[in-house]
């Protein structure tokens, strides 16, 4: 079990879930912001457009301009850009080789497994110093419990 933890209110998490369902069968993507004063806490979600030039059911890409705006938003509002979320339509919430190849240090990567109108699972991952993904526990602040099963081993 990993000791990495990501805290979020279930209402904030719902914003990602709604966006994943809205964009289905295509992959959705976006940013989230927050602070690290007392562990990593997400306070704001910002969905952005998937601009992948190709099969958007299997791939996503974020416009560099949207990335630039996200960093500016963080600086102007004194919050931290904590990571990226994206969906896996009709697939498990396990990072792909493609996700790993593109992953950056520090960021939390939230993956939502979405089947039509239902969210099957949500996981979060962070790169360790060896460049492998470690599963991060999603802790719901309002429910005072972890999201879902969180049974994933630390392998991608």
């Amino acid at each position, binding site marked *: 079990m990993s000791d990495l933890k990501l805290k979020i209110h279930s209402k904030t998490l719902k914003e990602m879930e709604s966006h994943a369902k809205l964009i289905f069968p295509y992959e959705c993507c976006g940013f989230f912001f927050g602070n690290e004063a007392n562990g990593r806490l997400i306070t704001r979600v910002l969905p952005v457009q998937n601009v992948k030039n190709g099969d958007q059911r*299997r791939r996503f890409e*974020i416009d560099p301009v949207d990335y630039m705006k996200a960093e500016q938003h963080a600086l102007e509002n004194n919050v*931290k850009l904590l990571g990226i979320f994206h969906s896996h339509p009709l697939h498990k919430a396990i990072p792909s080789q493609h996700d790993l190849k*593109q*992953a950056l240090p*520090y960021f939390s990567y939230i993956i939502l497994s979405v089947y039509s109108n239902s969210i099957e699972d949500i996981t979060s991952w962070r790169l360790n110093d060896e460049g492998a993904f470690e599963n991060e526990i999603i802790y719901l602040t309002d429910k005072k419990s972890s999201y879902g099963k969180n049974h994933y081993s630390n392998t991608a």
Partner: protein
Amino acid sequence: MARIIIPTPLRKFTKDESTFFSSKKNVLEAIEELSSFYPEIKNNLFDEDNKLRSFVKVFVGDKDYNSLQEKDIELQDDTVVSIIPAIAGGTGK
């Protein structure tokens, strides 16, 4: 001095600083100055041939540096240079 905005994931190489001020007038020289100041960031920005890595984009104001006609654009005191990592992924192979 022009301001370079360092992307959040690379701030572990800049002692958590988000911004670097450079008095250079040339974009690449300014980024090289940043790399000399924080040597650990260099490999994340430049390849062995000292070219900007393909997954790193540079914006000067709201313009993609690679699409600028005049690469030797002169940095002004209020110019903001953004270093932007590629963000992508997917499912399956």
